[in-house]
């Protein structure tokens, strides 16, 4: 099963970074690749089980379900319901951990999924670079101090 793992250090307290990323409907506010997002059926964005329906800047549409959200452990887990990518069983987690030395944040973004073997390397690289690292780069720019 292909696995994506990207991690980074963000120069801001974990509570501040969490405030920016915890909104399951908030990707367009912090992730440069996401244009617009809505939560289906008018549910609150922190209701576990809710579904976000969003568009990338290139027009691609993705629907994802919130599987877990913790304000205590600072993580968010979700699965893909629909996307243009040739994969199934996609589950990802974005997790923040405080770095006590310097009051910074260790951010990890992981995903696992199934796909045709020949597609695996490209999918892992594409998700890791364009989604996860691009998101961390945007957070690093936002919190540069």
């Amino acid at each position, binding site marked *: 099963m292909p696995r994506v*793992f*990207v*991690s*980074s*250090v963000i120069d801001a307290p974990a509570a501040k970074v969490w405030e920016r990323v915890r909104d399951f409907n908030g990707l367009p506010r912090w992730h440069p690749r996401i244009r617009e997002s809505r939560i289906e059926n008018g549910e609150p964005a922190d209701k576990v089980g809710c579904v976000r329906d969003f568009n990338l800047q290139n027009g691609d549409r993705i629907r994802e379900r919130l599987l877990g959200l913790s304000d205590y452990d600072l993580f968010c887990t979700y699965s893909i319901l629909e996307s243009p990518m040739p994969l199934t069983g996609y589950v990802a987690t974005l997790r923040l*951990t*405080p*770095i*006590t*030395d*310097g009051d*910074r944040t*260790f951010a*990890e973004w992981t995903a696992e999924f199934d796909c045709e073997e020949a597609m695996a390397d490209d999918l892992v690289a594409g998700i890791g670079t364009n989604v996860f*690292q691009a998101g*961390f780069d945007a957070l690093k720019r936002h919190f540069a101090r």
Partner: protein
Amino acid sequence: MVKIVKSTVMEAPVEAVWEVLRDFNGHDKWHPAVAESHVERGLPSDKIGCVRRFLLADGSELREQLLTLSDIDMAFTYCLLDTPIPLLNYVAHVRLIPVTDGDMTFWHWESRFDTPPGREAELEKQVGEKIYEGGFEAVRAYMGLAPRS
């Protein structure tokens, strides 16, 4: 129950930091509080259940037992058996995670313990600053990394 969490980022690849930390009998090489270390009964230091005996810099001794060691998770867990400072039911976890953005290492060190009544804050400070934060700096120096400014 006192809970301590200290963490830092080492400017070195995770494999290099793990090579230093995984030797349960090697902490005397880098930690200033530890003068000598040996594993009892000649056991290998990566055998789960082995007991290390530290001679501390102040001449006292302590014994700690390896409870978990994982090369895949780059983590280990240990408990205190005998100690000159009153840390009771002490269990500590050390874990390394790669920082892929920059080829660095996130080092997380946490523990829980009980103390005699009224000594919580003093012992929390001693363990957190002298042992954990002191350990971060000592490994930096041992590995030839720049001190954290």
